[in-house]
């Protein structure tokens, strides 16, 4: 474990954070981080600390999200928006291959793979998101070379959450709010005034190497204690929780629970929950060719268990009803993912609750269904 060989904590200021971005850029990494766009906090390319949502926080409830001003200048004083890092590591659309035919009837040949492999530095990765990346690693790292190539050189700057959203439940998923491993550098924000202030630790050799290039000073015991206390307060103020005891078996014993039909009456089968989910990985491929049939392309795009086509089998879909698709989504996350990949598929980030247009709450549905029909 990284935490076992925990390095001495350092203190970083706003200038230090800017220096961090510059060091990462100088290493050829694209620095990606939080930014405000169209009233939400998204993850995009960031040039400097000035791009970060300074002094903003976010307000969550089922089907509801708003940005609000904070009364301080915190740079990471919010939780998570509709984006997750999977859009970079497991992109929504990607070309799997292209082939050309030099003339009609000619044998096509594959075009060489583009060698523009991008290397990312992810800035502001939350504990739940680190867990989500670890979960997608289990699904994709071995089987998908493109994912492996992007993931291999990804530099991760994690941030301990100092605020919990009303739809957050990472504590009950044992996924946060404190980061434990899987990061190169981890920050805890202590900003109060206009000058940003962070307690910082390295988790890997490359993290230590980057850290050594930054303007910093050792953290005092008081600062370390304040940082720890902030994260503990976050854990204590989680908006929601997921029942934990024996959840997979209890859900699988209740596949015919009437609650599935009730939730299906509200569910629009829009697939928003799967798009915002940081672990959902389902994809479909599409083949296309140009009008002359000389250029052939296979594209992979995100798909969703809420789409009828996902289970299409000569003549019809296996999962025709919304009930069966919602059941697939929830039981996959919480019950069958462990059988398939050895971990839960849920990290407790709450995005599916916030971004559901009708406010369906996975923690409520799972509790009701796992309680059984007499519950």
């Amino acid at each position: 474990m990284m935490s076992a060989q925990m390095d001495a904590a350092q203190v970083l200021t706003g200038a230090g954070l800017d220096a961090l971005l510059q060091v990462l850029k100088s290493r050829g990494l694209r620095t990606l981080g939080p930014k405000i766009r169209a009233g939400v906090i998204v993850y995009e390319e960031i040039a400097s600390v000035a791009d970060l949502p300074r002094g903003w926080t976010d307000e969550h409830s089922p089907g509801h999200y708003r940005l609000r001003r904070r009364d301080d200048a915190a740079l990471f004083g919010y939780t998570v928006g509709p984006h997750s890092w999977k859009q970079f590591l497991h992109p929504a659309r990607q070309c799997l291959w292209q082939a050309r035919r030099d003339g009609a009837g000619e044998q096509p040949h594959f075009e060489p793979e583009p060698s523009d492999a991008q290397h990312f530095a992810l800035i502001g990765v939350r504990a739940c998101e680190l867990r989500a990346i670890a979960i997608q690693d289990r699904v994709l790292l071995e089987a998908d070379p493109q994912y492996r190539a992007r993931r291999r050189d990804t530099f991760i700057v994690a941030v301990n959450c100092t605020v919990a959203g009303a739809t957050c439940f990472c504590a009950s998923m044992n996924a946060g709010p404190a980061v434990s491993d899987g990061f190169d550098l981890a920050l805890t924000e202590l900003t109060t005034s206009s000058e940003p202030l962070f307690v910082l630790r390295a988790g890997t050799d490359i993290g230590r190497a980057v850290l050594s290039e930054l303007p910093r000073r050792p953290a005092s015991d008081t600062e370390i204690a304040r940082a720890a206390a902030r994260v503990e307060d976050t854990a204590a103020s989680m908006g929601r929780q997921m029942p934990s005891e024996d959840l997979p078996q209890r859900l699988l014993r209740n596949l015919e629970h009437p609650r599935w039909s009730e939730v299906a009456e509200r569910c629009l089968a829009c697939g928003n929950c799967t798009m915002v989910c940081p672990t959902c990985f389902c994809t479909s491929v599409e083949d296309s060719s140009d009008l002359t049939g000389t250029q052939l392309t296979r594209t992979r795009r995100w798909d969703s268990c809420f789409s009828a086509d996902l289970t299409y089998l000569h003549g019809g879909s296996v999962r025709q009803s919304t009930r069966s698709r919602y059941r697939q989504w929830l039981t996959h996350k919480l019950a069958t993912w462990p059988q398939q990949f050895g971990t839960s598929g849920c990290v407790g980030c709450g995005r599916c609750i916030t971004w559901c247009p009708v406010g369906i709450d996975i923690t409520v549905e799972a509790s009701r269904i796992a309680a059984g029909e007499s519950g």
Partner: protein
Amino acid sequence: MDASTIDPMRPRLARVRSRRRDGPQVWTLEIDAGPEARSGFSAGQFNMLSALGVGEVPISFSGDPTEPRRIVHTIRAVGAVSTALAHLGVGATLGIRGPFGVGWPLAEAVGQDVVLVAGGLGLAPLRPAVYHLLAQRSRYGQITLLYGTRSPAEILFRRELNAWRRRADLSVEVTVDHALGAWDGHIGVVTALIERAHLAARHTTALVCGPEIMMRFAAEALAAALIPSESIYLSMERNMQCGVGLCGHCQFGGLLLCRDGPVIRYDRLRETLRVREL
């Protein structure tokens, strides 16, 4: 080859070496994947075949696993991709990825009687198992092939079935749902053949492939003939897309059928097969 250098999503290009019609809308293609092609497959595994520019579908091997250089697939033209594949002419190019999945438990069945229960096109994925069993005939006990299909005109691999029927070391029974005219074989469902087959329940391994409804009834008939569910295997079909368990399409409860299957032991399926729209 080093796993890290192979992209499992990238097909290799192959050509149709020969093509023959094996039933209404059904064609069997032999595919030449070139000298560098990885050869060999286990009976029950599948390939992803691409009609270039149209799409890709999972198709089971239907050829002889003891001839690893020959890649044979039997395809029913039902959708856009399978129709494009089935109509490829000799010499035409297609894409091929695989082999994928877990096949029939032929090593585990050594020393046992084996009953193969096929429905419709489900005979194609079972044919490699028949080849394997016949190639190693002395290692198995009684071998029984029970095959049900819609009508006499839709019997697959007819000439080969007739040849197998003449063998003394293989028992073949074919039934059709209905027949007009000159058919003098069995008429009725394939489960009736199971009831009549007098299987030695305690040392029989059953391999079942066909439409899911047929497999459900066949497995129940095999269980009623006292074959333990740990000795019954079904080849499950879902919309496999990637073949390596990363696209999510072929989930069946906790199973990823492209990776954990397509052949799955009945005791792992019995409960979930009852759940609608799983």
